[in-house]
């Protein structure tokens, strides 16, 4: 229903405005409903202003800034309506070390109430997780899962 969407939208927008500066270490962002054309529905527009910068079109943002803006929105929706688990596949790939660190901190915190599954190539992310699995293809074309112990982690991570 349209009121229920508006209600959720407002909650997500409020949460997005809180999550963004936490992940970006400053700055501000928000969502805006666009005009519905004819009998269509309103679309959702994103405003994103990284710390110290001027508010500009979201297209001009860098690859990493775009990714982190999207992550802020996804996390905001998740915090409003959590699901039992959340799977993120290489979402940290375009992020620099500082941004990966804040992203990992937030995932760790949200993982107290939901399970998180992170597919990653990032060494810092590998060090943050509670359980680590490695997927290998010793036999070409055939995947095999192995458990990676905490003590082995740093060298396993280095080899991946």
């Amino acid at each position, binding site marked *: 229903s349209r009121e229920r*969407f508006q209600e*959720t*939208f407002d909650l*997500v927008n409020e949460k997005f405005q809180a999550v963004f500066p936490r992940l970006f270490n400053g700055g501000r962002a928000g969502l805006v409903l*666009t005009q519905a054309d004819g009998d*269509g*529905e*309103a*679309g*959702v527009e*994103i405003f994103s202003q990284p710390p110290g910068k001027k508010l500009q079109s*979201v*297209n001009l*943002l860098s690859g990493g800034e*775009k*990714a982190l*803006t*999207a992550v802020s929105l*996804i996390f905001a*929706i*998740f915090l*409003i*309506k*959590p*699901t*039992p*688990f*959340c*799977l*993120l*596949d*290489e979402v940290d790939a375009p992020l620099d070390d500082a941004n990966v660190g804040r992203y990992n901190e937030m995932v*760790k915190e949200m*993982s*107290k109430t939901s*399970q*998180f*599954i*992170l*597919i990653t*190539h990032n060494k810092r992310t*590998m060090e943050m*997780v*509670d*359980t*680590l*699995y*490695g*997927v*290998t*293809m010793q*036999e*070409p*074309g*055939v*995947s095999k*899962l192995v458990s*990676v112990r905490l003590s082995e982690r740093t060298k*396993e*991570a280095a080899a991946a």
Partner: protein
Amino acid sequence: MRIRRLDIVGFKSFMDKTVVAFDEGVTGVVGPNGCGKSNVADAIRWVLGEQSARHLRGRSMEDVIFNGSETKPPLSMAEVLLTFENDRPSELPTQYQGYSEITVGRRLFRSGESEYLVNGVQSRLLDVNDIFFGSGVGRTAYSIIEQGRIGQIVSARPEDRRAIIEEAA
């Protein structure tokens, strides 16, 4: 509805039976390019009822069945089982409330035959969707982010972005 384990056999590059146990907190999955990490994500999407082969990088749903390697022949069935802890019985349809664990399964045969299972009993996709409805497991538009998709959220059309929020509404 915490996930406890994922059992994969014959699904994409997982020729052999593979069991992934999920504990509390954060589970990481690592490995070289092409070793099968995103295929694990696809297996989860698939057993939750994904209907579009394109969302699993395939052209037809048959593409998810292990197709062989240079040294191994293809298999004729893909099967994925996802086991949940039933920690909130009230969220489930009455018929499943009594179980301590719920195992949802899906099979696809090369013949085209396809099955859904709940605790080993053949069921309909409708039953599987009902199980996931209350707990929010079905809300994959924001709870499963596939490789490369995070960038699309910013470049998406406003109507498509609305759809992600609608899933939470």
